[in-house]
């Protein structure tokens, strides 16, 4: 097995890491960089709990080899700038969305990417855009309200 030094840009900082290149990005973010936003849910690209933004697009870090994590990675921790919450995060608090909260990293980042792409989504577009992010506490109803609220705040 080949080890190489991998360079990662995460939340505005550059890291050089000596890890096996095929390692899923998720484990590097969690175990080498100590981040808590992305979490393991399935490791199969099916649930979204491991979501991070890569150049603004929501990707599933459990499926992405660290060697192919090019570009600027943003995790949940990196979403707030200078202690100021992103409007999406604020909407999540205002709507009191999370129950256990385990899936909410994926929900918030999926919503963030959705709203960056489509600042004024219809209800149907919200359902479709969010559909791959699963929640077993079933907070979908509040999540969708929070996405609408964040869209309004952005306006």
């Amino acid at each position, binding site marked *: 097995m080949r080890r190489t030094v991998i360079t990662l840009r995460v939340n505005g900082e550059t890291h050089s890491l000596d890890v096996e290149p095929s390692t899923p990005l998720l484990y590097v973010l969690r175990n080498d960089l100590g981040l808590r936003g992305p979490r393991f849910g399935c490791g199969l690209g099916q649930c979204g709990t491991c979501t991070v933004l890569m150049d603004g697009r929501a990707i599933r870090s459990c499926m992405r080899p660290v060697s192919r994590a090019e570009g600027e990675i943003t995790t949940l*921790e990196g979403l707030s700038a200078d202690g100021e919450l992103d409007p999406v995060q604020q909407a999540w*608090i205002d709507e009191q969305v*999370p129950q*256990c909260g385990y899936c909410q*990293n994926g929900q918030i980042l999926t919503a963030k990417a959705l709203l960056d792409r489509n600042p004024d989504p219809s209800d149907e577009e919200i359902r479709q855009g969010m559909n791959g992010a699963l929640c*077993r506490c079933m907070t979908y*109803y509040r999540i969708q309200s929070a996405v609408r609220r964040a869209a309004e705040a952005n306006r």
Partner: protein
Amino acid sequence: MKRPEEFPAGMEEALVPWEGSTSRRDFVKTSGLFVLGFSSVGFSGVGGIGRNGSGDPGEANPYPDPDYLQLDSWLVVHEDGTATFYVGKTDGGQGTGTAMRQMMCDELDLAYDRATLVMGRTDMTVDQGGSGGSDAIERDALAARRVAAEARRVLLELASERFEVPADELAVSEGVISVAAEPARTATYGQLIGGRRFDVALTGRNVNETTGLAAVKPVRELKIVGQSVPRYDIPAKVDGSLEWAVDVRLPGMVHARNVRPPFAGARLVSIDESSVRDIPGFIRVFREGNYVAVVCEREEQAIQAAESLALEWEQPETAPFPSSEDLFDYMRGATPVGAGTGTSPRPRVEGDPDAALAGAASVVEAGYDIPFQGHTAIGPAHAVADPSDGQMTVYTNDMKPYSHRTGIAEFLGMPPERVRVIWMEGPQLYGRTAADDAGFEAAYLARELGRPVRMQWMRHEETAWDTKGPAFAIDLRGGLDDAGNVVALDYRARIANYAHVGYNQADTVLIAQLMGIRPERPSPGGGRGPDEMYHIPNRREETRAVRFPLAFETPLRTGNLRDPNGPQTTFAGESFIDEMAAAANADPVEFRLRLLRGTTEDDATFRRARSIAVVEAAAEAFGWEPRPSPREPGDGPILTGRGISYGYRVQTAVATVAEVEVDRESGRVWVKRMVCAHDCGLVINPDGLESTIQGNLLHGISRTLYEEVQFDGERVTSVDWRTHPTLTHRDAPEQIDVVIVNGDPNPDRPDLPHYGAGEPSHRTVPAAIANAIHDATGVRMRRIPLRPERVLAELTAAGA
């Protein structure tokens, strides 16, 4: 519990320890020998006060139980006048912690943001059992209120001494006591006791009865209770700062993964360790009986090792269980476990149901099938165990940390005082973490290895091997008289619930089963029919368990799943009431109200009044138009209908109306709107309650429309989100209305109780949906889940 050494000779073979590991028998024998010491990881004293149970590094028992009969175990006032509360509950995301803090602040007369609350640490919080049964608000918060009220009383006494003024001439507001006649004379709680112990003894035969001398406040004096205080745990869940149980990282910690038998009941023959020895970071393979785990330095290495490990398994000769296709035929055909033997309750009979059925003007009969359903938590099981200094600290999201501690101590043969369990946030609990396997596994491996171990289950493992809600096959017969009154009801349930997994029992957790440990005897689930308050003069109710050839080491092991048995029994009961209403050509709401108003002769007036109130409230909020079901079907591709269902759980009454759209071409069902009328007595946090009910309803929709554990005759084939679908964003209702009802016959009473809300509404969902589909289409759905294929097949068969 049967230890391996007590097994008959044949079993010994399966227990031959893997060479190089300490055998289970050895560590059971040597369990008396420990290096004493105090592990400081994760422990911090609070507010400069040595907490009960904080122990001294030199003491023999570092983690004794906090004494519930000491006020100081529950509550600390700091020098700055803030307070920390300690409660022995956990919070699965329903706002239990916030609500308990509201209640304790109210009793103490302290502003909500001047207090914090610590939950579920066996070394710091009194044993209130952790979570389960939606009892935190109903039962445990009452003890917590009394304790906080007692603290306030003692503070008033201290102020009375300081000011030399009788306590009843003092006023209290938000942590400041003043002399009523001379408001300038004040003392804060911080000045009165900050940083010091109360040293006040409480009374009570058990933790639930804990009380001081003070009484709790009457409802009208509660100010924080009743407010939608935002949940304190949400900001850290939204900005990524929360440290979850999955995040615990300790110096020297290594990563473990399990390797599960590929067939249920398989026996491990051999392991070829050379298949993984060259994986970088590989540390060890552990094997005992049929339990196998690998440990590596890094997480991805452990995953690779678990996937690459070459093992030889022997398949059992007898199929362990029927396939999920044949399940209900099997259950109806099997001889159930003996009734009235203590393992299956005797039938409950009122009146003479057989005679009443024989004499009825018409008899309605129907059978309902509910499959095994899993928890399938969004995050698979996980835990970190630290064996430093001969102790064992387990970081876990187990909802019952106290039994987790005693279970692990028993499993490892350690004195409980040397084990502590620290509850941390994790994915949904709902009963799954009442027997959190990962904590036992992490502790076992950590103990064997002498290093902190992080155990994490994979997705396929969690979906296939988590504890399951049992399958039910329920047959009902009902008799109606000429006027359409129900004169008899005969309920017979067969439940696939032979060896129910208890709360963190050292002999029923999965690792124990795989190691060959067996409980003295299995604990078949029994239980009763649907909880409702209908007045039906002649009834029989019988629930009996059936067993499969494989009772242990099975992925179909049953455990508590949110509102255990409630959704299954209520699906059958409330669907059947609807069937009888249709047979009587009656409106489903009116029909139910008639059954609820049938009598006031028994002692259940209180329950009936509250049941009637929720049924009426749900119908009114929905805009229910009285008419029999089904409606005239429409012509278009989308058929719409409405259905009602009602349930009673412990002391909470619920009625739910669902409005559905059925796509007659695809069979897809969309629950467009739900109205839930809910009476759980005094409401502590309305928004928190609404969120909890919304979660219950949507979880109910998911179980009704999608969830089923599937298996062939060898193994569970539901292993991920494709093979075990769940509700998604696409399915969320357009509108959910929660109507909070107070149907208490004396609604303004000063001691209005606060009942549980974490589960009761869940049970009403399946029948509400099935009844709405019947209203829309005229077709009865008697087997859940209602995936599009099944709905389409039923519609086609009925020509609808």
